[in-house]
């Protein structure tokens, strides 16, 4: 087993708006100069949050009302571009446990899943409504029910979707696939031999 099952995620949420937010924006390349992921949290969305002198630009992530948020909301094609796992690592180390968006870029989605960060897809009208609920009460608890594909906030229930293989993996605690893959050592070696790679 790779960890514990993730059946639901709850906490406060913050909405970082915009389509096609790429992983260079999530974490600029200069912060990739590191040999571990440990220190990446503070660099999340750095250039969107701070100017060249390191002064805050008043980004929503730095709004005290959203301090401690554990669910990140965004729009279409979130996480496009570079495959850098530094992006979901920074999101996780900043304190987020799940991401809700219109859609996700594929490599980013895979990286999040492996790290145990559910990527949940919610339609635009619902995200707008959820955003309004959060704006009205930043302390409002948002619950992502992974098992039943619902998001609940202030007595409002939203239908959401997830990639089924990811949902299964969260429920079965196999989202980090390494142990599952290693269990097939014989099958791996047979495949390698059959293909002439051994």
């Amino acid at each position: 087993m790779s960890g514990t099952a993730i059946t639901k995620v709850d906490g406060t949420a913050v909405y970082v708006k915009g389509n096609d937010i790429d992983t260079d924006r999530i974490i600029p390349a200069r912060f990739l100069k590191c040999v571990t992921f440990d220190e990446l949290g503070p660099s999340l969305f750095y250039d969107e949050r701070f100017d060249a002198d390191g002064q805050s630009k008043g980004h929503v992530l730095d709004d005290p009302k959203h301090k401690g948020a554990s669910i990140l909301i965004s729009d279409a094609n979130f996480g496009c571009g570079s495959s850098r796992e530094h992006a979901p690592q920074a999101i996780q180390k900043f304190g987020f446990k799940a991401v809700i968006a219109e859609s996700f870029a594929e490599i980013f989605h895979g990286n999040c899943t492996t790290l145990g960060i559910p990527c949940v897809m919610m339609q635009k009208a619902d995200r707008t409504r959820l955003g309004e609920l959060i704006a009205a009460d930043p302390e409002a608890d948002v619950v992502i029910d992974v098992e039943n594909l619902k998001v609940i906030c202030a007595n409002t229930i939203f239908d959401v979707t997830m990639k089924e293989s990811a949902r299964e993996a969260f429920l079965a605690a196999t989202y980090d696939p390494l142990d599952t893959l290693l269990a097939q050592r014989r099958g791996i070696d047979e495949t390698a031999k059959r293909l002439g790679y051994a």
Partner: protein
Amino acid sequence: MGKTLYQKVWDDHVVGRLDNGQYQVFMALHLIHEVTSPQAFGMLRDKKLSVAYPKRTFATVDHIIPTTSQARPFEDDMAEQMIQVLADATGEHGIEFFAPETGAQGIVHVVGPELGLTQPGMTICCGDSHTSTHGAFGTIALGIGTSQVRDVLASQTLAMDPLKVRRIRVEGKLGTGVTAKDVILHIIRVLGVNGGVGYAYEYAGAAIDAMTMEERMTVCNMSIEGGARCGYINPDETTFDFLRGRERVPQGDAFEIAVEKWRGYASDPDADYDDDVLIEAADIKPTVTWGITPGQAISIEEATPSRGDDELIGDALRYMQLEPNTPIKGTRIDVAFIGSCTNGRLSDFQAVAEKIKGKQVASNVRAIAVPGSEKVDKAARELGLHEVFEAAGFEWRKPGCSMCLAMNPDKLVGDEVCASSSNRNFIGRQGSSTGRTILMSPIMVAAAAIEGQVADAREVFEL
């Protein structure tokens, strides 16, 4: 019903089905570099695991390497530490490392093909989204994250969901001055930056068939910018001719036997596709981006879009400091960059050298040419190309990713505008949080460098 190349390669490499519905897929070739891979070795150490198939992984250094002096230790301490961690880890695990100044170093997606490591019918992965480049040889080539690098090191397999296949046929003949880069920018413009999510792209049609391998690599390279995790082209005589005699392919009769096997991976004529798109080559013009995603592209003959209701257009125009409804031609540039895994191969520099001979880079432009690998550099020098570039006012640098992502000292300053042969025009991509990138083909970069502004290579070079 026949099968696509994607289905054939997938079926060959599947180890089994996993409980969550994914498949375990064997990776024929794994490429690693210093930015996304060293952490994976740390993960192995934590779990007391070894590398399962060290002979199927190859390492190089490209992202952080300086392009002025590559003597060790690097001036940047962290860059030095990153390359050292990679050197130590590959040494410890018996992985071949194409280190700087060995003659084999270069951008990972240039090195694999030029050595012949990349071969038709393979599954290939690398912790880099432009791994799709290798699809030009008829492979399933995927960008992966660091935890997946760990998975491949430990098991030589990945847990994967199968993709659908979209065939994109580019039919007809490309016009004069229209390059492979224009083809892929046009495709992304038409299908969108997320149009390919869930798909492998199969590029086909007469215009693709007519391309050289280096041109095909340019097309496949940017599949990810269209949202497709991989893109491929069926192997044919062009593929086999490129590979024949390369260092890491079978030699002599064994090569001809391999060719017969490789040929069999090509999609069957009656293969079924999940989607089929037709693009007319005649519709493709020299194409440049105007915005902050590779899909925000127009032909050199067009104007920037009007703001309309699309917030993204307004945001992009504001960031780029461009007016709506204004011709892109004539946009002043500060920097010209020719290089990257998209357009840093010998033929890219040859095409430019032919055209810039006797011309001069404009006085307002800083122009750099960065070969994609030590082999590209050597071949270019043997042809005297570096002298042509230098005479025209370009700096000829040492190989690396350089200003494509600016992890080394090659960066834009402030809100400089860069005419770039790379693959991403994202906000801040080229090392300055206000820097601006206009993507285009190498000959269009050369035209812009000479004119000091975005220009039509067909006019500047009288093509």
